């Protein structure tokens, strides 16, 4: 493949492709062309980030909205296996846990919360947290201040650690909404990066599993009776370091 094949698409074409990039509908060749353009064009990069932020917000579980009145599939909707989508649900019915009939299809609410859904939630929460004024409800580097702050606000006590000696100072904590419940969110800092650790009770034990969502890295594991979801835009090795520090203290 010659360099000519990688010709910059230009801003107009890049703008058209940014939406497809967000929707994972680009092939590898176009994806590389767009990424190269975005690396060099701040304006288009901002547009791409706006589309990503909008997508995260639209998937927020607190956002309840209906399909347009009278909406009905104009063609049959196929099942996708593993029961992931048995029929065509709508957001409102999912949140209400109800069964509806629309357009001749039975709309079945999902049971349980998928890990991908939780990953989307924690990334959406992290994006919100990065907005001014949303980072912390309790601002303190003292775990003896942060940990008691959650008392009475949630029905469990999240483990809170002072990791400043390891380069991850505690910034504070807040309440957030993930997987259909209110959870503890702990905020650590690594240089200019913010790292969120979302914690809630969970049985069992599991090794960290990594994923990415909208440019954020996610590490999830279970230990000590708690599920931990660490999220940041920091280098994944740094996120893994934070996870290791927490795991050492929760075994």
């Amino acid at each position, binding site marked *: 493949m010659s360099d000519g094949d990688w010709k910059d698409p230009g801003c107009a074409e890049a703008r058209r492709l940014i939406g497809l990039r967000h929707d994972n509908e680009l092939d590898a060749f176009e994806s590389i062309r767009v990424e190269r353009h975005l690396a060099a064009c701040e304006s288009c990069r901002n547009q791409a980030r706006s589309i990503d932020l909008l997508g995260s917000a639209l998937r927020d579980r607190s956002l309840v909205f209906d399909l347009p*009145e009278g909406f009905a599939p104009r063609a049959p909707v196929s099942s996708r296996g593993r029961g992931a989508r048995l029929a065509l649900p709508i957001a409102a019915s999912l949140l209400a846990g109800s069964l509806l009939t629309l357009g001749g299809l039975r709309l079945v609410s999902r049971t349980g919360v998928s890990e991908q859904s939780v990953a989307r939630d924690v990334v959406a929460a992290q994006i919100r947290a990065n907005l001014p004024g949303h980072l912390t409800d309790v601002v303190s580097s003292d775990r003896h201040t942060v940990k008691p702050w959650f008392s009475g606000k949630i029905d469990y006590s999240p483990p809170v650690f002072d990791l400043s000696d390891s380069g991850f100072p505690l910034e504070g904590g807040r309440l957030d909404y993930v997987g259909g419940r209110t959870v503890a969110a702990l905020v650590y800092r690594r240089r200019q990066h913010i790292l969120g650790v979302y914690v809630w009770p969970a049985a069992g034990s599991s090794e960290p599993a990594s994923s990415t969502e909208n440019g954020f890295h996610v590490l999830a594991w279970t230990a000590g009776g708690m599920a931990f979801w660490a999220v940041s835009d920091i280098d994944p090795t740094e996120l893994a370091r934070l996870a290791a520090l927490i795991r050492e203290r929760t075994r």
Partner: protein
Amino acid sequence: MSQSSTPFDEEEHAVVEEIGSPESLAAVRIDLGRLRSALEELPPHLREVVILREQEGFSYKEIASIVAVPIGTVMSRLARARSRLLARLAGEEGSGT
């Protein structure tokens, strides 16, 4: 399968370029209350593709099948819907009809 070579529906896509500057979009802060209002104000044919894509996770091909329009129209409707939502969130007037 990639849709990057699929042309947009030109008539429906015409509005996309009329939105505010990318710099203003980058400054968008997502207020869920305003987003909900903006969604409710979208024309039904735009709102349905947004919901099917962002909340339900259907592919372009699947959405095209569900709403019985060409894939290019799905792409242009999504682009148009996002443009309107971002413009609204950025405090601008909705663009086009």
